[in-house]
């Protein structure tokens, strides 16, 4: 088997993950290096890019609250000020990708925009599916990502790049059933060293929102800490 064929066999099954931005950075670098020299993968990538580009449109449209426009415009104006301060160098176009200028970044940007609209709109992410399985993307305050994976009546909160809870405190899951205060759960968790975390969430029956706050070790009966994330159940 030639070196190229061996290289192709190694990377061919990573194409989908690469197009979805799901390869860890070191693997993504390796895949891009392979892609530069593999015509088969280039053709496959060009063929499947249209599907990845269509993903933002698969999110259900939501009516954003008026505050969203203010937040977006504040960000735009802030970035415009930064670009102006950076001078003409900031206007230089980024290096184009290898296939006809199609780039993964616009797709991801659109996806993130759709996610942001969904998040601020209240229903976070896109509910998936039949067969009792769905995924809800949470709105995370202050960085990181989290999703609520609901499967066969069980729910699990999974997250990455979360800040560690403050010293002497732990993250606690709360269930909002529309009452005056959210109900406490015994779902307590901290982050791993890489910022990831996962915790099983009690039954979501009748639950409107799942929330997480930082609380003293052992948890609280009512929320006392800062809100970390919210997911609409």
């Amino acid at each position, binding site marked *: 088997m030639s070196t190229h064929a061996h290289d192709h066999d190694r990377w061919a*099954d*990573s*194409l*989908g*993950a690469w*197009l*979805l*931005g*799901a*390869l*860890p950075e070191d693997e993504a670098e390796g895949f891009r290096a392979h892609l530069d020299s593999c015509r088969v993968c280039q053709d496959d990538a060009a*063929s*499947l890019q*249209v*599907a*990845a580009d*269509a*993903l933002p449109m*698969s*999110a259900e449209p939501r009516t954003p609250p008026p505050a969203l426009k203010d937040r977006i415009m504040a960000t735009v104006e802030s970035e415009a000020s930064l670009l102006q301060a950076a001078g003409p160098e900031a206007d230089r176009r980024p290096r184009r990708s290898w296939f006809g200028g199609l780039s993964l970044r616009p797709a991801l940007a659109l*996806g993130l925009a*759709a*996610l942001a609209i969904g998040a601020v709109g209240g229903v976070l*992410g*896109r509910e*998936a*599916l*039949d*067969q009792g*399985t769905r*995924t809800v*993307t949470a709105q995370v305050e202050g960085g990181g*990502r989290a*999703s609520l*994976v609901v499967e066969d009546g069980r729910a*699990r909160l*999974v997250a*990455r790049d979360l800040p560690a809870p403050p010293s002497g405190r732990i993250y606690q899951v709360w269930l909002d059933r529309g009452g005056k205060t959210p109900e406490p759960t015994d779902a307590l968790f901290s982050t791993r060293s890489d910022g*990831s975390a*996962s915790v099983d969430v009690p039954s979501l029956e009748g639950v409107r929102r799942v929330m997480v706050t930082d609380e003293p070790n052992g948890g609280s009966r009512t929320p006392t800490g800062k809100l970390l994330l919210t997911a609409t159940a």
Partner: protein
Amino acid sequence: MDSLPAEQSHVIELAYFGGFTHTEIADILGAPVGTVKGRMRLGLEKLRNHLRVLELPST
């Protein structure tokens, strides 16, 4: 996305909208990484084929 089997749309949503890597998704679902990557590719292929059908001129 509604046209996809649940296991394929699930991994695509976790990757694209959730921002999780294939290894993280494998952990979440308790599935081998190879299976997750395969579902991603199959899902994208089905989406592409679905889009092609939508683009066909009506007769």
